[in-house]
């Protein structure tokens, strides 16, 4: 008797723990998302706080209105500096000369990815640089480099590095020192750095002018920052601007808060998905636990307990469990968020120290969500439990499963409702983008729920189909039958996995479709075979010597070769992309552009050509005049529109004569298109063109495929990023499958004991449970892939008018998801299978 009681308690304990696990997970995700967001913000704020530490006032150049960070500007002049230094209120001054630079690594390629490469002046006292090896640069041909640069370039002390800025030629420098930053850091926020003498830094940034990108001023004792600011006003004058360091840091923080807000939404999105998944887990666990206690509940009903009492008792249990589990989850989440902060900080921001911020909302939201979700999820099982007829207590055999017709019809309606929401949203039926977006997003969520409700109905045929695979083995057949045994349970378990797989499949499908659509447009429109360009990520745009174009044209087998100059200019006061070329007609032809009105031949000075929608934007048409100011331009110039192009992503923008390129941000060409003559060997031509460009390491010769790969590289990153989402969803789903299996195994202890008594081996038992697990997991993944493809297709169809005309299925990725599902099934089966194979035969078959 004691044995039976203890056994019952142990079984119940396992059930309680498993139910809690889902709640713990959900609230942990919410708490860690909130803590991580707050901590990243705090850490970034510390990082901004590092900037110009100790200074009171900053004097910076006047930035031209509306011009991006990458555009040239005038520095704070030496006269201004002298005027500042002569002020009585000033105690100390440090000067910064810092801007983008390109450096070539050991392999001859431009160093750096998305983080910039900077040139700085070693003498700048506002940043704490710590020499690790060698010494400071003393001559103009010497350089000290950051440890991060050593890592990324493969170069080291004593090596020679080639570097150049926008307006300077490639110059070789000897690396005489390697440095880090305070706190043992290798970089500041991941950037690579080269430190030159001040005059050399000024040559790189300002073409040799004695000017600075920033002057940090420390006030004399007794002078406040605001007083200093006021007293410096006359010295700074109109040529530069001064702000207190505090205002500068506040600005930085406001900027980074904007960026971290996005990260926060992203993380919270992850958290909410986890919660959404755990709703299924919790509901399922409660259903199973209640199914196991049906007799007990029926007995209570028989002795006079009312329906409401049953419902309330289940909900009270849920509330209690939710409270305990979500407090635990909040604790784990806060700890995990704090732990992850240092991972993120060290891995991506490279900060000296991390600040962990725990907003009070984090544990509160986690507990609220945990309790709320648990009670809500337990509602359906609780109501169902209350409907248990008292005679159930006397019925010996397990009764047949409840009919699923009601659920199926509801599921169908809900799915349709969700799909309608998506379609309405994507067709912009509502006023305001937010409404449309909301409609589509909510619609997608509703489709999930709908399909999740349909899973019970779908489980029969799909599981039967999957089961055919295992039918060769008897244990496999039993496992398959077990998976089909309780369609609701299988369905809800599979739904948990489905959600993650749906999300990634839909996103991957959409991104692949976009990629394929771009590729298809590209293939059908672009005439040129070869492209000369550099990496998109270089700090200073990759350019090449235009003189070389004549040599390229002279290559045997080259029909036409057109180089392009690029600038972001002010056109009638708005920022527009402007291109210049020697052969506009050829260039347009090679890009597959189309002339709608006017002409593109022999563009003269003061004439411009533009695509339709860019012209419409300014309300300009053929023959109208617009005013342009180029990045380096000192004055505005008038242009008459002589030609209009059809809209085409590859040729959109304004075109002017090549002579204006001297006023462009990059006065040298950034791209060239090469048309290879029919019949010529493309590979041979490529090799010959490469030979011409041998001294231009920044650019390379690419064919269609390579060029496309470079243009669409961002999509690849995005696809990789969403795989993380999958990994997360998978973890939750594994727990879900484990949960269901363990509970099922507990429920079937007697059955397992009987099978073992009849001579079923441990191996067969293990196989049986594993097949059940893999079947459920695969079922979920298949549903997810199906729903994901459907959602992807709906969105692609909706975007077709905007040019996403191809629907592409990411087959390799989908195969990988299914493979991952099998893996999930195998992993989830381990514990329950071991448990099942170790069932105590005697205990299992001895009667109550």
């Amino acid at each position, binding site marked *: 008797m004691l044995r039976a009681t203890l056994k019952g308690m142990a079984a119940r304990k396992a059930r309680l723990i498993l139910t809690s696990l889902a709640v713990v997970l959900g609230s942990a995700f919410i708490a860690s998302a909130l803590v991580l967001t707050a901590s990243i913000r705090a850490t970034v704020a510390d990082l901004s706080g590092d900037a110009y530490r100790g200074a009171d006032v900053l004097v910076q150049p006047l930035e031209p209105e509306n011009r991006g960070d990458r555009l040239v500007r005038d520095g704070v002049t030496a006269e201004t500096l002298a005027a500042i230094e002569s002020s009585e209120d000033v105690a100390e001054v440090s000067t910064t000369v810092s801007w983008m630079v390109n450096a070539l690594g050991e392999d001859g390629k431009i160093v750096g990815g998305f983080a910039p490469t900077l040139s700085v002046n070693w003498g700048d006292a506002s940043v704490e640089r710590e020499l690790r090896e060698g010494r400071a640069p003393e001559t103009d041909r010497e350089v000290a480099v950051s440890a991060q640069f050593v890592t990324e370039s493969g170069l080291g002390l004593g090596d020679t590095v080639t570097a150049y800025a926008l307006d300077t030629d490639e110059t070789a420098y000897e690396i005489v020192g390697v440095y880090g930053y305070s706190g043992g850091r290798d970089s500041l926020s991941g950037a690579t750095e080269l430190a030159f003498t001040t005059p050399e830094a000024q040559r790189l940034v300002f073409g040799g002018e004695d000017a600075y990108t920033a002057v940090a001023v420390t006030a004399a004792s007794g002078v406040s920052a605001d007083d200093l600011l006021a007293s410096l006003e006359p010295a700074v004058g109109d040529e530069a601007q001064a702000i207190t360091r505090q205002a500068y840091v506040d600005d930085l923080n406001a900027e980074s808060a904007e960026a971290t807000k996005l990260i926060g939404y992203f993380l919270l999105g992850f958290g909410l998905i986890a919660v959404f998944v755990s709703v299924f887990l919790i509901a399922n666990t409660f259903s199973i636990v209640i199914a196991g206690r049906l007799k007990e509940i029926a007995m209570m009903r028989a002795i006079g307990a009312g329906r409401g009492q049953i419902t309330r008792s289940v909900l009270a249990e849920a509330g209690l469990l939710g409270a305990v589990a979500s407090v635990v989850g909040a604790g784990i989440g806060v700890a995990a968020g704090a732990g992850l902060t240092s991972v993120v900080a060290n891995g991506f921001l490279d900060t000296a120290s991390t600040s962990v911020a725990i907003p009070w909302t984090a544990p509160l939201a986690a507990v609220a969500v945990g309790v709320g979700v648990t009670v809500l999820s337990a509602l359906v099982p609780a109501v169902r439990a209350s409907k248990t007829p008292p005679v159930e207590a006397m019925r010996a*055999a397990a009764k047949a499963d409840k009919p699923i017709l009601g659920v199926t019809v509801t599921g169908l309606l809900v799915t349709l409702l969700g799909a309608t929401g998506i379609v309405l949203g994507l067709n912009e039926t509502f006023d305001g983008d937010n409404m449309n977006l909301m409609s589509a997003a909510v619609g997608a969520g509703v489709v999930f729920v709908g399909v999740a409700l349909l899973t019970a109905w779908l489980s029969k045929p799909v599981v039967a189909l999957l089961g055919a695979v295992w039918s060769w083995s*008897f244990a496999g057949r039993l496992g398959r039958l077990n998976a089909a045994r309780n369609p609701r349970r299988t369905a809800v378990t599979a739904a948990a996995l489905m959600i993650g797989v749906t999300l990634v499949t839909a996103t991957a499908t959409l991104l692949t479709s976009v990629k394929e659509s771009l590729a298809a447009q590209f293939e059908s429109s672009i005439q040129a075979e070869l492209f000369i360009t550099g990496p998109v990520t270089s700090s200073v745009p990759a350019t090449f010597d235009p003189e070389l174009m004549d040599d390229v044209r002279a290559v045997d087998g080259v029909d036409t070769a057109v180089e392009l100059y690029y600038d972001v200019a002010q056109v009638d006061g708005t920022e527009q992309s402007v291109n210049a070329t020697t052969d506009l007609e050829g260039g347009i032809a090679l890009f597959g552009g189309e002339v709608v009105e006017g002409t593109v031949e022999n563009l003269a000075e003061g004439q411009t050509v533009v695509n339709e929608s860019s012209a419409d934007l300014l309300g300009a048409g053929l023959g109208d005049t617009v005013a342009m100011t180029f990045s380096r331009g000192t004055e505005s110039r008038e242009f008459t529109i002589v030609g209009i192009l059809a809209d085409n992503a590859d040729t959109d923008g304004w075109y002017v004569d090549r002579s204006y390129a001297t006023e462009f941000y990059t006065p040298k060409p950034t791209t060239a298109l090469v048309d290879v003559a029919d019949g010529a060997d493309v590979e041979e031509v490529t090799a010959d063109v490469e030979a011409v460009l041998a001294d231009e390491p920044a650019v390379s010769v690419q064919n269609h495929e390579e060029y496309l790969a470079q243009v669409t590289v961002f999509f690849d990153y995005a696809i990789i990023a969403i795989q993380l989402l999958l990994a997360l969803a998978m973890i939750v789903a594994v727990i879900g499958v484990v949960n269901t299996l363990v509970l099922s195994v507990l429920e079937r202890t007697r059955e397992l004991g009987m*099978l073992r*008594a*009849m*001579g079923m081996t441990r191996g067969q038992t293990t196989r049986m449970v594993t097949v059940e697990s893999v079947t459920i997991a695969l079922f979920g993944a298949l549903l997810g892939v199906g729903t994901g493809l459907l959602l992807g297709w709906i969105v692609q169809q909706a975007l077709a008018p905007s040019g996403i005309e191809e629907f592409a299925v990411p087959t390799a990725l989908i195969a990988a998801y299914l493979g991952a599902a099998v893996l999930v099934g195998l992993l989830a089966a381990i514990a329950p299978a071991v448990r099942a194979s170790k069932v105590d*035969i005697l205990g299992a*078959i*001895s009667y109550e």
Partner: protein
Amino acid sequence: MSTASPVKTTAVSAEGVWKAYGTGEAQVVALRDVSVQFASGAFTAIMGPSGSGKSTLMHCLAGLDTTDRGTVHIGDTPVTGLNDKALTKLRRDKIGFIFQQFNLLPTLTAEENITLPAAIAGAKADPDWLKKIIHTLDLTDRLSHKPTELSGGQQQRVACARALATRPEVVFADEPTGNLDTRSGAEVLRFLRTSVDDFGQTIVMVTHDPGAAAYADRVVFLADGRIVEDMAEPTADKVIDKMKHFEELVAAAQEETA
């Protein structure tokens, strides 16, 4: 048609079997030096008061539980000392089971339940034999039904068919009629009798019911873990009579060990 051989061989035998549960103060000795043989082709009932060790003896005989001392043989195969794998194989190939309830897998049809032991072994059951027992048990119309669609008596008959499907050396039944009404119980017992008489099966059945014991060729009485009586050719009356004097038997047995 009787396949029972004239020279009775021993299907199951126990030699000096001891079994105790727990240790120290809480120790319960369930079997004390039990030695017993069960002849092939015979139907033996084991009776005794609750807690006397009937189930324990059966579990030890069937290789479901280990003995503390003594040896058990199924035919010529020693059961004692076998590892889990060998025991599993032994149960699969040589033993049939009928439990009091929950004998069937709810996911399988009656027919699939009957062929379950063969399927577990990866073998195919002899179709003629199957036809014969299914016919004898009057289950022909029920083969495609799931257990939930069968009455308790029908379920128990399916369990009987299953126990016999592989022609095991011995069938162990622990109160197979314990949950059935008199009529269904009688059907099951008649079948067990038939399978001994006509097919030469060996059956060892634990029961509380003197009426059920009367179907057997022999009744072994257990009390306090000991065999206290071995009755041949039992009738319900003889058994009831024996049970009336049980207290004396138990006292005598206890004196013996004291």
